[in-house]
């Protein structure tokens, strides 16, 4: 058991577990963000709960950060190992004949998503941490001195989507996330050994998830850009 992460299968298993965790996180992130379209007040309430409940802040958030870092680091480790397995390439290849573009370019799509995450952290996460844990304002209010000022979360979200450049970057990143998930969703299940009578159904669901969730995030960005 101790050496499992030193084996090719063990590393892929760990990669798949982190991927499944991140996909679950993405789903709940979307479920909260879509509230901003239908009910700004509910979005504010849920955001405040997520931002202040200790289990989420001190247990799940560190696990999430570890999961993100682990997924990217392991992705690069696997890529380096895979490149070492074939130092001399073919003069001619016809890879499109036997595999999808998405499956062959997970590192590329993953690197773009990583770049987007850096932007996302600068935009949302770092200011949030700064406000709550450095400035010490846990109120979640637009004006901490005025309890009538209302929660700040919806206002911050809408403000971020004013810039067409940011919205453009957002759209590109989510298109690539969709391509990443179109392969990654099923691949994660295969890596943990789940290939059975449910696999075909899972493939159908994976397409709905891989296209639907990123498309939903893009919709939210465009909705706020064009309605405010």
């Amino acid at each position, binding site marked *: 058991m101790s050496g499992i992460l030193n084996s*090719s*299968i063990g590393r892929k298993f760990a990669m798949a577990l982190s991927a499944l965790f991140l996909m679950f996180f993405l789903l709940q992130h979307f479920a909260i963000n879509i509230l901003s379209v239908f009910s700004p007040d509910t979005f504010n309430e849920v955001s405040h709960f997520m931002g202040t409940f200790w289990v989420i802040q001190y247990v799940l958030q560190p696990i999430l950060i570890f999961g993100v870092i682990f997924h990217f680091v392991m992705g690069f480790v696997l890529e380096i190992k895979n490149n070492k*397995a074939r130092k*001399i390439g073919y003069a001619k290849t016809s*890879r499109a004949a*036997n595999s999808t573009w998405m499956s*062959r370019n*997970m590192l590329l799509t993953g690197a773009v998503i990583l770049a987007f995450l850096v932007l996302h952290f600068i935009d949302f996460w770092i200011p949030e941490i700064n406000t709550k844990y450095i400035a010490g304002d846990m109120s979640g209010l637009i004006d901490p001195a005025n309890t009538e000022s209302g929660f700040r979360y919806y206002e911050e979200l809408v403000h971020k989507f004013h810039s067409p450049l940011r919205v453009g970057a957002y759209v590109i990143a989510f298109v690539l996330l969709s391509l990443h998930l179109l392969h990654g969703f099923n*691949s994660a299940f295969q890596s943990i050994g789940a290939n059975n009578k449910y696999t075909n159904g899972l493939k159908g669901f994976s397409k709905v998830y891989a296209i639907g969730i990123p498309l939903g995030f893009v919709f939210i960005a465009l909705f706020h850009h064009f309605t405010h």
Partner: protein
Amino acid sequence: MMNLTLKIWRQKNASDKGQIVDYPISGISPDMSFLEMLDVLNQELIEKGEQPVAFDHDCREGICGTCSLYINGRAHGPQTKITACQLHMRSFKDGDTIYIEPWRAEAFPVVKDLIVDRTSFDRIQQAGGFISVNTSGNTQDANAIPIEKENADKAFDAATCIGCGACVASCKNSSAMLFVSAKVSQFALLPQGQVEATDRVLNMVKQMDEEGFGNCTNTGACEVECPKGISLENIARMNREYLSASLKG
């Protein structure tokens, strides 16, 4: 009759750098097998006093897994579920340029021209691809132990792997997972394979990693190019077997 341009990897020995060399060839019948076409080329080269192209071949009927040509960017050529020896020249057009290269993987070093050393597969087999049974004097009837039909069929399908290495050659990571998983599965699905199941999967995967094969990224290229149609389901089974064995071990 067809006229073709062959672009063939020539490499004198394991330490030679090697290069692609062009060979125009004419008068090729569409009914020839691919290997017969190479025989014609080699005959011409011998008559000219040149070194013939070295390539692996044995049964020439798709059973032995010896032929190992990467033809126009695909293992065993443009058709699926066949070996290079079962490929016919009617799969190409008059005037075509055909690239012929050896399997490429650090675990399959080139010996000469199109021949690669696939003994890494042998070492993986030796690490656990067998069952230990006393067979002298008390051989049991093969049907003494009932086996579920579905499992018997899946074990048989896995056992049809001929160890040609097309999976490694096709995989962008040079992963041997389809080969190893077929060997693990054919025993894991049968009662006779259960006794050594834990050690088998751990030892075979350990040997696979030590040989320098890459990781599986589930592109599925191996399954498409496998001449015997070995399913990715076997890789998932090996993953389960390995994880379960790791917990036990």
